[in-house]
């Protein structure tokens, strides 16, 4: 078990290294392909040659790519200094560099965005998990009933709706037409829990709806499969009460795959829900990423990519471990 864990963690770190290397490589090449100058991005308006040279010197943009990558890794682990003569800027570990656009340190910039993305993802996750699984189970138990058909039709419609449409539609109805909910504007939980809740309600519901649709379909399929298994039939034949059969046996194995997917979905959402954040103007990691990409802000892109990949990789790891614990058929090792 321990050996397995070590191997998995080693693999995860390796994957992350490759992600950063590939990202770094691609975005290092981008300025070459588009004929632009990263130094110019730092400066923006005045294209003064002195200013450009100063920035190149300070940010080490003139170094070969592997040297730059090495410095990036060093910054990540040990922090690094940006120096241009007497002008030295220290960037503590984990240092992701400086934004081309705002000249802010990327790490705190992204840390500021994390609570937004976390609030969005976790809130929506709770909603869709409860909603999706509950409807899926009920549908499975009443297979073929009117309710089942209605739910499944709704779920199929749900998985066919893009959030950039449902989000706008929901805003049009609940914000502009009925006026029940405010325009989204993130309020930190500690500042005002009530405002935090109200402001996030619409994004939560919209995001959760899409996932719930998928989870309902998935849960139903898994439940049906489980209910058809021999041991359930045996349990029923033994005369166990239906409640025990469903609650204790069917649910447990029927929902095991859900755990897996849930972990992965959550992991990738935590890395930034680009579309949801774009639709609702929530300044989370995804929003930040989009802005950064549009402005070729390499350090920020690199930072977000790294964080997003980390969440996905960690989610994978956790899911595999949890899977091993709850599914007796899987043995880790």
């Amino acid at each position, binding site marked *: 078990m321990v050996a397995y864990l070590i191997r998995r963690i080693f693999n995860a770190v390796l994957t992350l290294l490759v992600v950063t290397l590939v990202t770094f490589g691609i975005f290092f090449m981008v300025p070459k392909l588009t004929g632009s100058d990263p130094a110019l991005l730092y400066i923006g308006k005045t294209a003064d040659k*002195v200013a450009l040279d100063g920035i190149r010197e300070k940010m080490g943009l003139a170094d070969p790519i592997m040297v730059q990558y090495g410095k990036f890794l060093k910054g990540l682990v040990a922090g690094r200094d940006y120096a241009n003569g007497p002008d030295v800027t220290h960037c503590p570990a984990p240092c992701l560099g400086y934004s081309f656009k705002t000249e802010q340190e990327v790490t705190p910039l992204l840390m500021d965005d994390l609570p937004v993305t976390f609030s969005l993802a976790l809130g929506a996750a709770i909603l869709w998990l409860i909603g999706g699984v509950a409807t899926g189970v009920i549908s499975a138990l009443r297979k073929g009933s009117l309710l089942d058909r209605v739910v499944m039709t709704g779920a199929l419609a749900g998985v066919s709706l893009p959030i950039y449409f449902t989000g706008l539609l929901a805003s049009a109805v609940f914000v502009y037409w009925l006026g029940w909910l405010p325009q989204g504007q993130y309020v930190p939980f500690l500042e005002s829990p009530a405002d935090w809740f109200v402001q996030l309600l619409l994004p939560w519901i919209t995001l959760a709806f899409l996932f719930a649709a998928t989870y309902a379909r998935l849960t139903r399929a898994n439940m049906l499969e489980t209910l058809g298994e021999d041991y359930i039939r045996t349990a029923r034949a033994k005369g166990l009460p239906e409640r025990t059969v469903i609650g204790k046996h069917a649910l447990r194995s029927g929902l095991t795959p859900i755990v897996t997917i849930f972990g992965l979905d959550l992991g990738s959402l935590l890395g930034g829900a680009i579309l949801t954040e774009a639709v609702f103007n929530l300044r989370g990691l995804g929003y930040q990423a989009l802005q950064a990409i549009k402005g070729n802000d390499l350090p920020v892109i690199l930072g977000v990519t790294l964080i997003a990949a980390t969440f996905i990789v960690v989610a994978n790891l956790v899911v595999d471990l949890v899977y091993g614990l709850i599914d007796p058929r899987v043995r880790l090792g």
Partner: protein
Amino acid sequence: MSRKTRAFAAAGVALALGLTSAACSGNKSDDKGGTTSGGKSAYNAAITDVVNPSTTKGGTLNLWTAQDADFWDPARGYYAFVWNLNRLYTRKLVDYAASPGKSGLELAPDLASAMPEISADKLTYTFKLKTGTKFDDGAAITSKDIKYGIERIFAQDVVPGGPVYLIDILDQGQGYKGPYKDTDANKLGLKSVETPDDQTIIFHLKKAQSDFLYLLAMPGAGPVPQKRDTGAQYNSAPAASGPYMFKAGSIQPGKGVVWVRNPNWDPATDTIRKALPDQINLTVTTNAEDMDSRLMAGTADIDVGQTGVQATARTKILQDPALKANADTPATGFIRYAALATSVAPFDNIECRKAVFYAADPTSLQTARGGPIAGGDIGTSMLPPNIAGSDAKYDPFNRLQGKPQIEEAKKALAACGKPNGFDTTIAVRNNKPAEVKSAEALQAALKQANINAKIEQYDGAQLSSVIGAPDNVKAKGYGIQIAGWGADYPTGSGYLQPLVDSRFILKNGNYNLPLIKDPSIDGLFDQAAGETDATKAAALYEQINHKVMEGAYYLPFVFDKALNYRNPRLTNAYIHDAFGQIDFQALGVSDGK
């Protein structure tokens, strides 16, 4: 494509710097719905009058913006609203007077005790400083702090971002690299500026420059105490010389800023600032729609971006007289235009340029910019209506009638030797929705005259190396370039010179997009630089404007406007013509909260 490139909020509407407004005439009367008497709030009242005059102190002013500041370091900021907000914490030798209308364009002594003594040859400016002016830490403000602040602008390698006019004027061949590389013991090695004592500062110019004082009114010419200068980090804690200082640690990029009273500011030394609120909060939001609803609900006081409300709020405000009474549509001082590159065939031929002028549909371009109220008036020439020398009736291409002139366009095409039209490319920034829409509207209109334009979007952040690089423009064949411009200081030179003077053509960061090389235009600017009589200077600028229009280099879309809302509780609200925005330093709150 103004220099304040990044100043445009997501809205993509206008941003101003440079003058504006009704007081200087030129504002069309049809959008002035309200009357302005008695300082009461009314639609467009703040353009000409002070709305809710008051001297009541106290309360907290809640400023909002959808676009974060570029830099709080006075030497580095370039957004119009940041220059405007600098008035809260940065004093300069001279600053714009605190009043609405034309009188706001006049400079008043600020740290200087009086306007400078100017030598007969107009080359030496001598300022005497007020006594009793202090930084927020209690240190007295001396002439050396002002010189040091100006020297920092030269350190473009460390603190880039702001305007560099003063480098061009004050370096005079010295090759000064800024205080960080200064070998002088006191880091005051710039030779053209003298500080014989703490109360005197003398500027020596190489040639007469009638706009010089405007350059000294920019935030970068404000004082910086050398011992508190931390280079690039100064941006996170600039010293304050004005009535407000940054609350310690309150500068949070992307979130906001808090200003509190500067206990060392003495109102007796300051004739410009009112300093009414006890505290000023600036909140940065990502949601402009939300900001609009807060403004209308009264929980936000003003949008400091001043680039206009979004479509939702625009509709609400214009349809509800009660809301409309708290709104203004000042001219922002920007012109939105297409530049026709003379380096790209067939625009080397003036007739082909004229064909574009006539084929363009003035109304669809205006609608693309936001319509007559929120977008602006149809552009007719290249001097905004409020800069001295402009003439609202001057409409050489007959654009005010609002329709494309296909017959004229076809005649011009024939004269150009392209009776069957031609192909060209429209270059447009990808991060300005209104500019992309303008490009589409122009493309559709040109098609009617058989001019087939394809649209090429480029990364807006790369402006200075894409359309700002003449070699690139030529290589890529960007015949038509969509851009916009607002003046850095409110004179004809301030507006037009970077756009049309051949000596301003740069290999990178060029703003003379058509590559106009007309010695007679250059000569007129030189004449104006030596002209101290404003009326005569205005006549020169009028001539330049005519020459530019006759050359058909720039096709003006609109004289930009922005529909902005102000919270009714605001006192002393008026549009400052130097910024085309509310004068933030004058604002107070009536309810004391």
